[in-house]
């Protein structure tokens, strides 16, 4: 089985999702929960194995045994494996939380959830740009369906925006692929990089439009300004476990920008070198600024968290555009941190909101909640993490990014927006915390306390943050190597061809 390891993060969730449509798993929430847990455990094992094997050597898997660039390949380098593990861990948290009851608010939660994981993992692993489109479609269509889980006006409204914008985005994705295939003549990502460096001037102009259109597509997914409009409403109205899982969705866009615009059309792409960089700069800074303003102006914890996601998007892309790619290792570390913590914060917002009754997660005085000590502590830790204060992981990530930018030409910009957004986070989160936990009126609310499962889910995600600090040496070393590998050692098409032949 070991030689098929790379394809398993895609197939395992798919298999179980399909089984859930059939008897005996069909329509029984208990069996589906157990099946989902089982799948997540298996996926966790697979992801860890994948990290181990890909750390030794990048794994190339030629589907159907067709030699690249003709067939589809999956490529598991350190980065892809890391993202798969990240997705799985986040998925575990979201699933645990959902199994406390949210999964029964509508149909098909478990199969859709697993399909979603399949799509995300596929997007991380694939080495073929059309296949990337397919996995984008899988994760998008699953996310459309998950977004409306639980029903209600807010969700329907949010999903109309989300679906419409993404459908247009998908059309442009196809158009961009058409342009790129029409100029480069290939779909394999490594082969594209190869072909790009050999393009002639006039063809390069055409290809450039394709490359930039891809930036639009990935930017929409990543919620880069001014393509971010779907994010706040979508994230804040989705049901908690779905919102938590969505924390990885923007990262799929960022990951694609890293891979495609940072590497394939990066430094060595001949006439197409760094095509997207001049665009990413201002967009990332604007995203950070708008996210910061949004953060300050948020009136509820969910909206606040959504804006934190926006800030992390800006931060990650700013780290990427630091010349020479020296910020990428930092960005990858920050990606781990921010994904898990935002996920935890979405879950927490839901728990707090439910216990506060009518006031929900809005920053208004309300009755005391059932579990002030527990939720207060968890919120406090999560807040420290997102602000970037020790001892949580945010500070390591932030310090790494600032260090990477130190002395570069864009230092003033990067430092000031990141530090100011941190200050805004301090103001916003201290306001949130004091309003939610300290500004009380009346007797204890009669809402139910959060269930064990929900608490475990949040603790699981949140515990990753200090672990990322404690094992900081190993993790930073890994992300740094992963970044360098991504920049310089993505398997060339020649290497891939050999891999294809041996199978």
């Amino acid at each position: 089985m070991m030689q098929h390891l790379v394809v398993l993060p895609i197939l395992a969730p798919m298999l179980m999702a399909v089984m859930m449509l059939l008897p005996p798993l069909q329509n029984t929430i208990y069996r589906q929960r157990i099946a989902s847990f089982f799948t997540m455990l298996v996926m966790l094992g697979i992801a860890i194995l994948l990290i181990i094997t890909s750390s030794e050597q990048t794994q190339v898997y030629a589907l159907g045994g067709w030699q690249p660039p003709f067939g589809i390949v999956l490529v598991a380098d350190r980065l892809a494996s890391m993202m798969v593990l990240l997705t799985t861990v986040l998925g575990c948290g979201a699933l645990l939380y959902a199994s406390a009851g949210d999964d029964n608010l509508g149909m098909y939660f478990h199969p859709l959830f697993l399909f979603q994981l399949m799509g995300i993992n596929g997007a991380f692993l694939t080495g073929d740009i059309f296949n990337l489109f397919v996995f984008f479609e899988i994760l998008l269509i699953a996310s459309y369906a998950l977004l409306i889980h639980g029903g209600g006006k807010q969700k329907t409204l949010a999903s109309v925006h989300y679906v419409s914008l993404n459908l247009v985005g998908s059309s442009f994705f196809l158009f961009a692929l058409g342009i790129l295939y029409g100029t480069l003549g290939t779909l394999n990502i490594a082969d594209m990089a190869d072909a790009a460096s050999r393009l002639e001037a006039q063809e390069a102009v055409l290809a450039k439009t394709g490359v930039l259109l891809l930036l639009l597509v990935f930017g929409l997914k990543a919620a880069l300004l001014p393509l971010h409009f779907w994010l706040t409403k979508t994230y804040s109205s989705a049901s908690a476990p779905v919102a938590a899982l969505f924390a990885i969705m923007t990262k799929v866009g960022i990951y694609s920008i890293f891979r495609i615009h940072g590497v394939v059309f990066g430094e060595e792409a001949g006439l197409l070198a760094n095509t997207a960089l001049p665009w990413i700069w201002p967009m990332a800074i604007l995203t950070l600024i708008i996210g910061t303003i949004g953060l300050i102006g948020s009136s509820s914890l969910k909206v606040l968290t959504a804006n934190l996601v926006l800030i992390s998007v800006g931060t990650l892309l700013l780290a990427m555009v630091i010349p020479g790619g020296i910020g990428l290792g930092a960005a990858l570390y920050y990606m781990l941190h921010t994904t898990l913590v935002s996920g935890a914060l979405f879950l927490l917002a839901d728990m707090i909101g439910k216990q506060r009754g009518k006031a929900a997660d809005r920053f208004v005085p309300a009755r005391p909640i059932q579990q002030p000590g527990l939720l207060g502590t968890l919120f406090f830790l999560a807040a420290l993490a997102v602000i970037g204060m020790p001892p949580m992981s945010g500070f390591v990530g932030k310090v790494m990014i600032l260090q990477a930018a130190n002395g570069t030409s864009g230092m003033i910009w990067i430092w000031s927006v990141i530090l100011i957004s941190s200050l805004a986070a301090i103001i916003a989160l201290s306001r949130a915390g004091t309003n939610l936990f300290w500004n009380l009126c009346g007797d204890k609310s009669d809402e139910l306390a959060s269930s064990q499962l929900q608490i475990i889910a949040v603790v699981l995600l949140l515990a990753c943050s200090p672990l990322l600090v404690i094992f900081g040496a190993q993790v930073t070393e890994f992300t740094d190597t992963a970044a360098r590998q991504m920049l310089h050692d993505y398997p060339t098409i020649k290497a891939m061809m050999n891999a294809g032949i041996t199978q």
Partner: protein
Amino acid sequence: MSLFWIPLLPMIGTLVPLLSERWGRSICALCTAIAPAIALTMVLAYMPSVLAGQPIQQSIEWIPLIGLELSFHLDGLGLLFSLLILGIGLLIILYARYYLSDQDSMGRFYAYLILFMAAMLGIVLSNNLIQLWAYWELTSISSFLLIGFWSHSSNARKGARMALTVTGAGGLALLAGLLMIGNIVGSYDLHTVLNSGDLIRENPLYPVILVLVLLGAFTKSAQFPFHFWLPHAMAAPTPVSAYLHSATMVKAGIFLLARFYPILAGTEQWFLMVSLTGLATLLLGAYIALFKHDLKGLLAYSTISHLGLITLLLGMDSRLAAVAAIFHVVNHAIFKASLFMAAGIIDHESGSRDMRKLNGLWKYMPYTATLAMVAAASMAGVPLFNGFLSKEMFFTETLDQSALGSLSWMIPVLATIGAMFAVAYSIRFIHDVFFNGEPINLPRTPHEPPRYMKVPVEILVGLCLLVGIFPQFMMGDLLTSASSAVLGGAVPTYSLSIWHGFNLPFVMSLIAMGGGLLIYHNRRSLFRFQAQFPETDAKLVFDDTIKLVIEKAAHFNGWLENGSLQRYMFWMMFMVLALITVPIMNLNTTEGIRPETPLNNVMSAGAALLCICALATVIWHRKRVIALLMLSVVGLIVSISFAIFSAPDLALTQLLVEVATIILLLLALFLLPQRTPKESSPSRIMRDLSISAVIGGVVGTISYAIMTKPLVSISDFFLDNSKTGGGGTNVVNVILVDFRGFDTMGEITVLGIAALGIYKLLAQMHIAMPTSDIDGRSWARDKHPMMLEVISQGLLPLALLVSAFIFLRGHNLPGGGFIAGLITSLALIQQYVAHGVNWMKVRLKVDYQWLIGSGLFIALATGAGSWLFDRPFLTSWFDYFTLPIIGKFELASALLFDLGVYLTVIGATLLILANLGKITTGERPKQTEYE
């Protein structure tokens, strides 16, 4: 024993009070004290060797990539601060045991306090810049918790937020400064950094670094203009104020100045910025302190003033001044802690802190009054008390200044004025509270506090006296050692004695005391003068500013994200234009070298029709049925053009998808509101039209350019290998099920998920059915016309046969699972249309969800089947067999995969269409009841 334990023990000790709270207050306090007590013992054990000039240092590598080490060192400065932090900390623990009421959670309080203590220890012992910063932030965080401890009070919440915001902002500036230092030096190790003073001072970035580090120090130490947070931090319980504002929090800023003295001091910028800030703070604090009616308010501003004094000392261009600064740190910590505790006792036992009500307490609590008087005398700088000594040193240094050039004479004068006010407010503290008539309307009759509540004050006051009378014995070595750490080497000679002769500084002291008495005596006219100024409450100003920012931000958010999908779409289209028009302008010619396909009449007519119908769809979009008809024409022409360009598979698929989509849209439109309101203004229409036209033009140009140029692509491989490698002559099908079968598997998954999602949506929606059409006509009564029923029933077997045929031949001729699946679905849909749901329900007992599931399962299993032969996922197999009668035929694994596609397509299409149709009947889709 390792040095690590000193900061680590209190950190672990944070948990102790939480665990021991259940055993009662005294035991809780006792247990809490254990960890700091051990840490203090350890510090004392290290003391001899540190005093002997051998600092202790230990480090472990942590995150080498960011230069973070777990690294501690104990030098003279660290030793002095550690003693203060732990010593006063222990006294505070004792004091708080009696101060806190039963309603306060003692465990939580102690936990925050110990956390804070650990953070402070971390700062003073850190030997790594990043670690130092981490602890620095930790003090901000834990002080936030402490200040906000009485969270029910709005003042506490606001005070806590304000402190966190100001010190947090300073912390970020400090981080920037430290990172720049680290970058210049190439190391974050404090030792290395401290030895690189010249390197840093000569760097062009030095002024920036200096400002950033000073911002960190000044915000923390409440220097003007950042002093405003400190008085509002008084909303905390008094033990917290006693701790934070005497020995710890605010001294962290001073510590930072002292720590970086060797690398940042010694320049013009340093002297100007630090000394002027210090001077301003000193005067401002001393002046305002006099007017505060709140005991703690007075002490708060006095703290600000004393911090200003220390800062001023550190900013003076003299090594002796630095020694005086360190000395005053200790003295101030001792007398200020005892004063805060005394104020706390008064508050606790009389129920008020208002000096207009508190009068004549001498009668009720003479013992406490005596203690407070000694401490206040020290604060005023009366001889024989420790405050006097450092103040004398301070006066001496002010006389020696030249930083302000010809204006340097102002420094001693202003210093004396500051000292006058210090004397005045000290007198006020004593006279107003303990004498000055009788108490007015106190909530409680004042009395002496419990025995042990006084112990910490007694110890501190004892220290005031001891240091004041035997300075050399008490402080000599410690001060020398700490000063040498600050100055980075030799300490100038100085004498610690009570009497230095009748010199100028002594005269200044006398003037200050006389002046202070005079000011206090005339306080009423001063109060009247001060009353003319409108009182500004920094908390309100700060809070209003933050509120305004929040409001503006919220307003901006509402304006930007106004919930209009049109606006969001506009921005996306705008980005598309921005992204593709810029490069496309550089395209010289769109003309490629490929020969153009000759145009004939049929094609031009088709193209014209396509354009017209596309336009018509848009124009008539409010008349939905017509728009839909126009749209179907567009689809039809697209199908035909696929056929013309030799893509029969695509043409077939497109044709079938068209039919399915139109049925779907008809059903959906039936359920939607019948009238579409006019939504766009004329100018909006013009805008949208222009954007569409430009995008269309650009896209057309790009497409034309691509289609006319020759291309070397991987397509030839597929043509060459289709038969030999994939076993089929229909390349399109072989690509779908073999070369790129993985994509197809993904796409049918998408289809399946879409069906599930739509079913999910339908099941939770409650849509009212229109009772009549747009013109008010009721629906036809004959829902299932006989003609349709009969014909479609007859067509069904034929359609199924065709679909089977199309399916089987797919590998070699146009067809395949996808097309066959669509044909089957449409044939079944036709039955639904003709006969209705109820008729179908009885006859077609297939669960469409199962169809999707099994289809996907078959595709997946086929792919995984190749693992049995040790091949990658989806590796295909085919072979030719000969059977009698049938003859030679081919068996391929791809056929099985295609069966999966076939089933999924049927399942998905019918799950969507049948259920959408069912909404119009009594058989609405329902949420499946889960067990």
